[in-house]
């Protein structure tokens, strides 16, 4: 029973990370109909920025803030320089450009920061909490991770729904034509979208790196699972991302814990879940519309 609780809580924490990555992908997808395959690498890069700041200033929170700021800047910069030219071209071009960006960032990280595994500090204690005498299987840091993602997600949701900046972004995402014809500067909105996605990715990076160590490829797996979570939830649905992330986090935690040779089979389980969901709803769990059929 204790084991089950531990796997569950562990699954929730990782699920939140996947949800954060999934959300950043959905943000960009809804605004620009692009999948940013470099999202994980961007998060890795901003986490390196964080660790350098932490190293030089001795302050975790300075590094945390630096990562988020770097995420905003990196996201906006990438959209302005290399993504904009792909806007009216075949969509696969943008795919290759973001893949190129992913490779470039991993190479640059290796050059500037070195390729060896580095440990990344956690914001709070990582020793397990206890209720009475029983170990709960989560630490203060785990609680922080969960809360941080929920708070940021909540803040974004509120911004989108209740502010006029949020309305601008939604209008631009739902109908670029009407948005432009209403005077909304869609190009600017897209840049802001990428900047926010960069922020979310940076958050995911600093939250997960204490568990995974930091090296140029360290965010690859997280990206794949975040992408899977986004697809499971439906790429147009922010709620879907969170639910997809939680679902995936929990399932993978149980699989890794209970199956024989579980650790290797985790990707297989993820694939299985994905296939089952997509066979029932080809657009993800929260897809609203039907594929046009004859």
């Amino acid at each position, binding site marked *: 029973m204790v084991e089950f609780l531990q796997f569950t809580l562990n699954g929730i924490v990782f699920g939140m990370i996947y949800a954060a990555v999934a959300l950043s992908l959905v943000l960009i997808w809804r605004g620009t109909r692009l999948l940013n395959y470099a999202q994980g690498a961007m998060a890795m890069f901003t986490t390196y920025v964080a660790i350098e700041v932490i190293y030089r200033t001795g302050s975790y929170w300075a590094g945390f803030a630096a990562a988020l700021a770097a995420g905003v800047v990196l996201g906006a910069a990438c959209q302005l320089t290399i993504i904009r030219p792909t806007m009216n071209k075949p969509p696969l071009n943008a795919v290759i450009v973001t893949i190129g960006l992913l490779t470039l960032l991993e190479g640059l990280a290796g050059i500037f920061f070195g390729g060896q595994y580095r440990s990344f500090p956690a914001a709070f204690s990582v020793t397990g909490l206890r209720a009475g005498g029983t170990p709960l299987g989560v630490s203060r840091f785990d609680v922080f991770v969960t809360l941080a993602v929920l708070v940021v997600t909540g803040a974004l949701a509120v911004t989108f729904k209740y502010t*006029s900046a949020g*309305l*601008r972004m*939604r*209008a631009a995402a*739902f*109908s670029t*034509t*009407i*948005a*432009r*014809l*209403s*005077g*909304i*500067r*869609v190009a600017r909105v897209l840049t802001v979208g990428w900047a926010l996605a960069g922020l979310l990715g940076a958050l995911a990076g600093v939250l997960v790196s204490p568990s995974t160590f930091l090296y140029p490829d360290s965010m690859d797996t997280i990206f794949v699972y975040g992408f899977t979570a986004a697809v499971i939830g439906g790429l147009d649905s922010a709620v879907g991302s969170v639910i997809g992330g939680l679902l995936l986090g929990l399932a993978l935690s149980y699989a890794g814990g209970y199956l024989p040779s579980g650790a290797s089979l985790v990707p297989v389980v993820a694939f299985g879940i994905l296939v089952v969901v997509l066979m029932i709803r080809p657009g993800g769990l929260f897809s609203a519309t039907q594929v046009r059929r004859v």
Partner: protein
Amino acid sequence: MSSDTAPATPALAVEELTAGYGGVIALNGVSISAGTSAITAVLGANGAGKTTLLRAVSGMLRPRAGRILLAGADLAGRSPEQMVRAGIAHVPEGQGVIPELTVEENLRVGMMSWRRARPRAERAAALDEAYQRFPPLAARRRKLASSLSGGERQMLVIARALLARPRVLLLDEPSLGLAPRVMAQVMDLVVQLSREHGITIVLVEQNARGALAIADHGVVLNLGRVVAAADAATLGADVALRHHYLGF
């Protein structure tokens, strides 16, 4: 109200406008003028260039040649966002409302071309005014625009266009897909816009008869060129023209 000849400085004048897509020229040296606060109907068969004309004027399509004069100033080549701020609003065919947003949100989008500095109170007041004028919208303000009927959607379209306080409004097939009774209501609204608010209207319509019934002037396009331009009554009386280009 209508005049036989175009006024000296029309609200909107297009001179020798040429535009196209890729290798195809859809609009070839077209010149049109729209009298201030008048309704100018742009008519013609499918593919005549009517929609291309509106897209070129609103900035959605960059013209290859020609001038677009708003009260005398040449705006050709500007982006849609700039055109809206200059006072030219465009409602494209079939794309009036954003279905995923609520009625109120759609209306707020209409005000996004306002200068930022305008106080919140003004926007709230404008919204209230819109609800007073269009009670069905007030009743559904928090509902998604996708839940509105065809006629209600067009009402929302026009309310939103009104909120943008344009000088010139380009309407592309506002009555498309609507039942005849609803079509008439929409046409009435269009007339209101020009008579009561002084907005210059350029109206593209397949339904040539209905358009000529409310228009002051008319322009007939064929294959990207102007084949006739006169006041609405004269065009309506020209049976040969009607048969050949307008289908009635």
